[in-house]
C-alpha cells in the first residue's frame, strides 16, 4: 500500500537531489573539515558552500549562520545566549502557542528565577501586538515568537514584532522551523537577532539545523569544546547533514513559488472538499494568513486518534491535536490557547502537504475521510441532533 504522506510539518522526505549531494560525504569524502590536510579541507570547502546556500535563502551573511543539530538546539541557544549576555535582565516574552522547544525552556527558566509573559492568541490564533507592546519591561531580555505555528499554520507578523523589539531595544528570536521553504523571508528586512531552522522540515535529513545570529549581537555558545563554527558551536560538524541542508535551502528557494501555488491549491482543495462533505467541520486558525501547506480541521463529536488510526489503514499519514495522540490527557496547548471548544478540539486533524503530494493523494483523502467521520459519529454517543454538547462536570 502506498504511503500518502500529509504530515510534513512533523518531518519531510529527503529530496533525492539532497541525498545525491550528501552521498559522497558518507563514503569517499569522509574527511574532518577541521583537519590541516587537503582531504579534510575539501569537506571544509563544501561546508562553506552549504553555509553560503543557507545564507542566501535567509538573506543574510554566511558568517551569521551557525550549524547545529536541530530546531530545538537553535531555540535553546538563542534564548540562553540572550539571557547570558544580559545578566541584569530577567524577563522573557513569548507566546502560549510556541513549540515545546521554546515553551518548556521558558517554563524551566521561570523555575530558575526568570519571569515570563506568555502572549495569548484570539480564537483564530492571532497575536495582539498591543498586548506585546504592553508586556515589554525595562528588564525584558528577549522576545521569542515563532514565525508560523506548527499546528494551525498561522503566520505571525514577525517583521512588525521584530521592529517593535528593535525600537524598544529588546533582543528578538524567532523559531522559523515551519516557514523555511514555505514562506519567502529576507533577514535584511526583518530585524530579528536570532532565528532557528531545522533540516528535516525542508527535505534535508534529521539531525541537522541552523541558526542565524545577527552580526554584532552578543553571542554565548551553548555547546563548549572545539573551535568548530568559529567557537560558537563546538563539536565535529555533521558534514553530510550540513551539506544536505545547504542543498535543501537552495532547492527551497527555487520551490517557494511552487509551494504557494501548486501545494496551496492542493491544500485548498482538500480543505474545501472535506468541509463540503463533512457537516460540523471547521478550520482551526485564521484562513488568510497561513502556511500554504497546512490545514487544521476540526470534526465535531469524534476523537482524533480514532480518525488517525482509520486513516492509517489507507496509508494516509496526518496528525492530531487531540489529547489521546499526544500522550497527555488534554487537547493541544495551541487549540486550547485559541479557545477551540472541546467538542471540536478532540477531533482536530492536521494535514500538512509538500511538493511530493499529488492530486490523487488529495482525492483519496477526500473520498475516504468523510466515511471515517461518519462511521465514528455513528459509534459516538454525541450527536448533533441532541443539540449542544452535554454540560460537562470537568
Amino acid at each position, binding site marked *: 500500500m502506498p504511503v500518502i504522506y500529509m504530515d510534513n510539518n512533523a518531518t519531510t522526505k529527503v529530496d533525492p537531489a539532497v541525498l545525491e549531494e550528501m552521498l559522497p560525504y558518507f563514503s569517499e569524502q569522509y574527511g574532518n573539515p577541521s583537519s590541516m590536510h587537503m582531504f579534510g579541507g575539501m569537506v571544509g570547502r563544501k561546508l562553506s558552500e552549504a553555509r553560503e546556500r543557507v545564507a542566501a535563502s535567509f538573506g543574510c551573511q554566511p558568517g551569521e549562520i551557525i550549524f547545529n543539530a536541530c530546531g530545538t538546539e537553535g531555540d535553546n541557544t538563542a534564548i540562553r545566549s540572550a539571557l547570558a549576555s544580559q545578566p541584569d535582565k530577567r524577563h522573557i516574552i513569548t507566546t502560549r502557542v510556541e513549540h515545546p522547544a521554546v515553551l518548556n525552556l521558558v517554563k524551566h527558566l521561570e523555575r530558575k528565577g526568570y519571569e515570563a509573559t506568555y502572549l495569548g492568541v484570539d480564537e483564530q490564533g492571532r497575536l495582539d501586538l498591543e498586548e506585546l507592546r504592553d508586556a515589554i519591561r525595562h528588564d525584558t531580555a528577549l522576545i521569542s515568537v515563532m514565525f508560523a505555528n506548527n499546528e494551525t499554520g498561522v503566520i505571525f507578523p514577525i517583521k512588525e514584532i521584530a521592529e517593535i523589539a528593535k525600537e524598544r531595544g529588546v533582543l528578538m528570536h524567532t523559531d522559523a522551523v515551519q516557514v523555511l521553504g514555505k514562506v519567502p523571508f529576507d533577514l535584511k528586512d526583518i530585524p530579528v537577532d536570532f532565528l532557528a531552522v531545522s533540516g528535516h522540515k525542508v527535505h534535508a535529513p534529521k539531525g541537522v539545523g541552523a541558526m542565524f545570529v545577527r552580526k554584532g549581537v552578543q553571542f554565548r555558545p551553548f555547546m563548549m569544546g572545539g573551535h568548530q563554527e568559529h567557537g560558537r558551536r563546538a563539536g565535529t560538524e555533521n558534514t553530510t547533514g550540513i551539506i544536505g541542508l545547504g542543498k535543501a535551502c537552495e532547492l527551497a528557494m527555487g520551490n517557494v513559488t511552487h509551494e504557494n501555488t501548486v501545494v496551496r491549491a492542493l491544500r485548498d482543495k482538500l480543505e474545501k472538499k472535506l468541509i463540503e462533505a463533512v457537516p460540523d467541520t471547521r478550520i482551526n486558525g485564521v484562513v488568510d494568513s497561513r502556511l500554504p501547506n497546512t490545514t487544521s480541521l476540526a470534526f465535531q*463529536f*469524534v*476523537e*482524533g*486518534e*480514532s480518525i488517525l*488510526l*482509520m486513516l492509517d*489503514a489507507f496509508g494516509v499519514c496526518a496528525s492530531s491535536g*487531540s*489529547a*489521546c*495522540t499526544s*500522550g*497527555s*490527557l*488534554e*487537547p493541544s496547548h495551541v487549540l486550547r490557547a485559541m479557545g477551540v471548544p*472541546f*467538542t471540536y478540539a*478532540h477531533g482536530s486533524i492536521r494535514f500538512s502537504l509538500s511538493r511530493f503530494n499529488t492530486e490523487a493523494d488529495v482525492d483519496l483523502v477526500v473520498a475516504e475521510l468523510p466515511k471515517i467521520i461518519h462511521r465514528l459519529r*455513528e*459509534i*459516538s*454517543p*454525541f450527536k448533533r441532533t441532541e443539540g449542544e*454538547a*452535554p454540560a*460537562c*462536570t*470537568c
Partner: protein
Amino acid sequence: MWEYTDKVREHFINPKNVGEIADASCVGEVGSLACGDALKLFLKVDENDRIVDAKFQTFGCASAIASSSALTEMIKGKTVDEAMDVSNQDIAEFLGGLPKEKMHCSVMGKEALEAAVANLRGLPMAPHEEGEVVCECFGVTDTTIRKAIAENNLKTVEEITDFTKAGGGCGKCLDKLADLLAESKGGLKPLQPVAPARPTGLTNLQRMKLISKIIDEEISPSLQKDGGNIELVDVDGKTVLVQLRGACSSCKSSQLTLKQFVEKRLRDAVDPDLVVEEVR
C-alpha cells in the same frame, strides 16, 4: 504511535455491539466530550437477572472503543452479579493488554458497567457522584481514585493518572493524589499525626543526628520499597540537602515525594522550619 495489540485493533476497526437498545433495561453513562472520552452502555436484562444483550456508544480513542467492545462481549450471557465481577484488568487482559497510559479506557468500561447496574437497581448513579471531586479537570472523585489504587495496586501518582486521568490536566491536584496514595500505603502512613512529639531545644549536632536517624530508619526503607532511596548529603542551618537514588532519581513525582513525604516527616519530627532540597 501507540503500541496496540492486534486484539485492540480488531475491536477498534470492527467493534462488536455498537448502537443503542431501544428497550434497554438500564443505561450507564460515563465521561463527557470535554474529557475526551465518553461511554454509554445499554443492557437488556431478563427476569433471571441475566444480561441477554449489551450495546454501546463511545466517543474516544481506539482503546476506548476497543475496551467498550470488549466489555460488551465479556458480559453478554452473564448474570448481573457475574458481570460485576469483571474488573478493568479483565477488560485489558481480554484485549491482550493496553498501553499503560490508556488503562483509564478499561476503567471507563468498568465504571459504565457499574453505572448501568446502579441504574438497573434504582440506585443513584454510582460511582461518579460519590465522594469529593479531587481532579477538577476530569471530574474524578476520591472514591474513584481510592478504588483504582486498591484494585490495580497503583504505586505512583503517574499510575493514578494513567488509570483514572486524575492529575492529567492542570496538575493542581497532584499533591492530593500523593496524599491519597500515601494514605493507601501502609509504609507511608506515618505521614499522618502518628509522629511523636517534636523535641525542643536541640543542639545543632543533635538535630543533625536526629535528621540522619529519621532518614536512615524511616524514610529510606520506605522509599526502598518502591525501588528508590535517599541519602543525606548535608545539613546547612535549616536546609536539609539530600540526594535521591534508584527509581527516585528518574521519577517524575520525586519532587512531590521530597516535599510531601520527606520534608513533612522531618518537619513533624525535628523542626517545622526545615526545608529539604535535592542535590543533583
